[in-house]
Structures are given as structure tokens and as C-alpha cells.
């Protein structure tokens, strides 16, 4: 193989160019200051080098003005970089409302991806070009980190918690997917590819999967297999509350607090049900920790999100919000580990 010497990564996401702009600005700034300081040092060293007959050092008047100049200029420059970096950070952190959702689970040492439509893959992720994609991620064991250099984004994947990453691929192709957080022996083997596909190809690919049904359907099956239905009856007549339409709403808890039902809360309700108990119910739900895999949990969540008033087609969460007339509030969110 001919050795190649790339100097710059491919730009393949909507914000790659923005990140690179800041990078180039900083490279220029670094070059400027390094050349300035390096140049001055060398220049002075030559000009004022000590010879046998050279005059003693001249003690200069020390101007406050000079000190202020070189304190304030770096201060302004660096605050400028801060603002730039921070605005970029918001962009990278905040997925657009219409982003498609995909689930990812990290595990020593592989990436397991679940599409809502049902396809599952390992160490590969297929996404459409031109559409924002949001990954909800969690880990089954240690901390991993989902990193796609061509998209200029990464996010740690933590056990016991969900984190989010999003991007919009702009160019079809296959891009490296790395695990960037050290996670043990085969950390460097926890790699794969993100395949950005033209929307049509992507649709074809999506339906080409196994016939396991959508993620929500798998969740529904699990819901039955685990006998959740014993307590969570559709009409709310069981020992547990009815779960239809609760996603995205705020529900009252025993003890007076309220909680926003989001992925985190549903997950907690299943693995650690007594941590926060719904108002009017007994803390009788058993824990399912260890009985359900992280992927299973994701499918259960997806199922809970999808349950409508009657057995209808799954409703997207946004719509569910509107129906119950409750807005997603920031502060009412789970106080726990979001």
C-alpha cells in the first residue's frame, strides 16, 4: 500500500465546517503568537548577545501601559474564542426538533445500534444524508465514547444514564466510528463505520432488515413476556398505573413532587421502581434490573412512548405532549442524574 499523508479530516456533517473555521482561526492565532514570541526571543538573543566588550544590560522603565496591553489583549482574544467555542457547543449539543431518533448501546467492545423501524446493527450505523439524526445512548458496562471524526462530534456513553449525540450527514460515504473513551482491553477494536446514504438508499436499507418488527413492537412483546401487563392494564385497573400517553407529561409523585416522564424516568421506573413512586400507588413494582438488557430497556421505553389511548398507530411524543396539554418544562425534569 502506498503511504498516504492526510493532514485534514473529511468534512461530512452540517457543522464540520464551523468547527474547522474555529480550528483554522486558532491555528492562525497560534502561528501568530508563536512566530511573534519566537521571533522576538531569537532577535533579542542575537542583537543583545553578550560580547567581551558589550555594554551592560539597560534597565528600562517598566510601563504599566505595556503590562496592561499584554494582559488585556490576550483576555479579549481568549474571551472571543470562548464565545465562539461556546456558541458552537450549543449547536453541537442541541439537536433540532425534527431529528430522527436512533438508539445506541455501548458494550465492551462493540456498538449496538437499534433503529426505530426495527433494524439492528453492530459496529455499523446507517444514516440518511441530509436528515438530522439523534442518538440516544447508554452503556452496559463502562464508559465509552461515540466519536465520528468526519462529523466532528463525540459524546461519552455512560452506564446507568442516557446521553444524546446528533449530527446531520451532508455527504454520502463511510466514515470511521471510534470509541474515544478508554474502556479496556479492546478499546482500540471498538470501532466501526457510519454509512451515510442517500435518502432513497437508506429507505431501502431500512426495510431490508429482519422481520422482527419495529422497536416499539419488540418492546410490546417484551412487555408481555415480562408480565408487565399483569399490573399495567390498559384501563388502569391493575396495581400499577396505565402507561398510555404518559410520556412527555408531568406526573405527581408520592410525597408531593412532580416528575417529567422522559426516557431517564422510565428507565429508572423499570430498574429501580421505588426510587420515585407515582402518586396514589404502592411501591410494589419489582425491579427488573438484571432481567432486561439495556437494549430491552430501550425497546420498553420505545413501547411506553408509543402506547396511544387505544391500540392505534404509535404516536410520536410531540403529539402526545399536545394532547395532554402539558408542555415540557425544564425545571420539572427529573432531578436525578439526567
Amino acid at each position: 500500500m502506498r503511504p498516504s499523508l492526510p493532514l485534514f479530516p473529511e468534512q461530512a456533517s452540517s457543522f464540520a465546517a464551523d468547527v474547522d473555521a474555529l480550528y483554522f482561526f486558532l491555528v492562525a492565532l497560534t502561528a501568530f503568537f508563536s512566530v511573534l514570541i519566537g521571533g522576538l526571543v531569537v532577535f533579542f538573543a542575537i542583537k543583545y548577545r553578550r560580547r567581551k566588550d558589550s555594554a551592560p544590560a539597560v534597565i528600562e522603565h517598566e510601563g504599566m501601559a505595556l503590562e496592561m496591553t499584554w494582559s488585556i489583549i490576550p483576555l479579549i482574544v481568549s474571551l472571543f474564542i470562548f464565545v465562539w467555542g461556546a456558541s458552537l457547543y450549543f449547536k453541537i449539543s442541541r439537536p433540532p426538533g425534527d431529528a430522527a431518533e436512533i438508539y445506541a448501546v455501548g458494550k465492551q467492545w462493540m456498538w449496538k445500534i437499534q433503529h426505530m423501524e426495527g433494524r439492528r446493527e453492530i459496529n455499523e450505523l446507517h444514516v440518511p444524508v441530509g436528515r438530522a439524526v439523534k442518538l440516544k445512548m447508554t452503556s452496559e458496562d463502562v464508559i465509552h465514547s461515540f466519536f465520528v471524526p468526519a462529523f466532528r462530534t463525540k459524546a461519552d456513553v455512560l452506564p446507568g444514564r442516557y446521553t444524546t449525540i446528533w449530527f446531520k450527514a451532508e455527504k454520502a460515504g463511510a466514515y470511521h466510528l471510534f470509541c474515544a473513551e478508554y474502556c479496556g482491553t479492546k478499546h482500540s477494536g471498538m470501532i466501526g463505520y457510519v454509512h451515510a446514504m442517500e435518502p432513497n438508499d437508506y429507505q431501502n436499507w431500512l426495510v431490508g432488515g429482519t422481520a422482527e418488527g419495529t422497536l416499539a413492537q419488540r418492546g410490546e412483546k417484551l412487555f408481555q413476556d415480562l408480565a408487565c401487563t399483569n399490573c399495567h392494564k390498559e384501563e388502569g385497573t391493575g396495581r400499577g398505573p396505565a402507561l398510555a400517553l404518559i410520556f412527555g407529561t408531568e406526573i405527581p409523585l408520592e410525597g408531593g413532587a412532580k416528575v417529567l416522564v422522559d426516557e431517564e424516568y422510565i428507565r429508572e421506573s423499570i430498574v429501580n421502581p421505588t426510587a420515585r413512586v407515582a402518586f396514589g400507588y404502592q411501591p410494589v413494582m419489582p425491579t427488573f434490573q438484571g432481567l432486561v438488557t439495556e437494549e430491552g430497556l430501550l425497546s420498553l421505553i420505545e413501547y411506553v412512548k408509543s402506547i396511544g389511548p387505544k391500540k392505534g398507530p404509535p404516536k410520536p411524543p410531540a403529539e402526545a405532549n399536545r394532547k395532554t396539554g402539558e408542555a415540557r418544562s425544564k425545571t420539572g425534569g427529573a432531578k436525578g442524574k439526567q
Partner: protein
Amino acid sequence: MSAEAHGAVFHAPRAHQFDTAEQQKDASTLGMWLFLVTEIMFFSGLFCCYLVYRWFYPEAFAAASHHLDVALGGFNTAVLICSSLTMVLAVNASQAGKRRALVAFLILTILLGGVFLGVKAVEWHHKYVDHHIPGPSFHFEGPNARQAQLFFSLYFVMTGLHALHMVIGIGLLTVLTVQARRGKFTPTYNTPVDMCGLYWHFVDLIWIFLFPLLYLIDRHTK
């Protein structure tokens, strides 16, 4: 702190690197205080964990805290405060050159420290019997069992490290007592007593915070 002004008399053993006994004492005091600051920071890591987890799981912490014995904890707090008093009186006695009183107060302090550790041991034993020792055999009745384990982990680490400090303190005091009996300390040289006093009070201080934080969470709800 002009050295010449007072430096005329010193019978105190003075190390070669110091000019005056006063300088030496100043250096020791500053050194001891810096050491206490490192101790504060040492415990601050634990307080940080405590704060975070109590914020996450207030109910679990309250429920777990209710399994501690306020009577024993309160008694121990009182014991420690008494020991602080005897310690400060010991320092006072050493400054006044009262050797008998010094030895007596030191021994009292050691005894009180011993009582504290004894009570602590009884409490830990209760926890052991109740399977409240974190780890595989941990068992907790009621909701939030798992998070309650977090409380007990912190309880044991905090009280354990505190008790370790007490043990070290008692060791130091024992050495002091022996030295005091031999008449090592005089009104002009009593730095070690002073320093041990600071250490002992610090250990008391930590407990003053541990008591309400560990024993008194939401007692009224029970």
C-alpha cells in the same frame, strides 16, 4: 514578631535552622494549620460525595439515616465535646507549667476518646447485625434499598476515617502523656501539646458536622 525583643530567655530545644524559639513555634503553628487545611480538603471529598448523593436521593438518605441511633450519636457528640474541653484545659495547664494537671487532663482526654471509639464500635456492630454493611451482603428493608447502600457506604467511610483520626490522636496523646510525666514541657516549651490540641479539636470539628449530616436527616418524618 521581632525576634530580638523577646528572644532573651529560652530553655526550649531549638533546632539549628531557626534563629529563635519564637520563630520555631511560629513555624510549627503555621505548619500545623496548613496540615489541618489538608485534612479539611481530605474530608471535603467525602462531603462532596455526600452532598451529591443526598441531593440525588433525599428519601433514601432519610430512610437510611433513620436506622442510625440518635441517642448513641448524640452521646458521642457530647463525649467528644467534653474531650475537647479537657484537651484545651491540658494545653492551658501546660502553658501554666502545671505538670500534674497537664497529665490528668491528657489522660482524661484519652479516656473520653476511648469511650467515643467504644460507642462507635457498638454502633458498627449493630450495623453488622442488621446487614447494613455495604457490599454483597447488604440488606435494607423498604424502598430505595440500593440508594440506601450509598448512604451506608458514606457513613462507614466517613465515620471510619474519622475514627482512624481518633486512633491516631489517642496515640499522639499517649506519647504526650509520657513526655509530660517526665516533665518535658515547660511554660516556655509546650509546642507539641499545643499542636496535638489543634489536631484533637479538628477531629472534634469534623464530628460536629458528621453528627447532623448522618444522624439527623428528616428525623421528624418518622
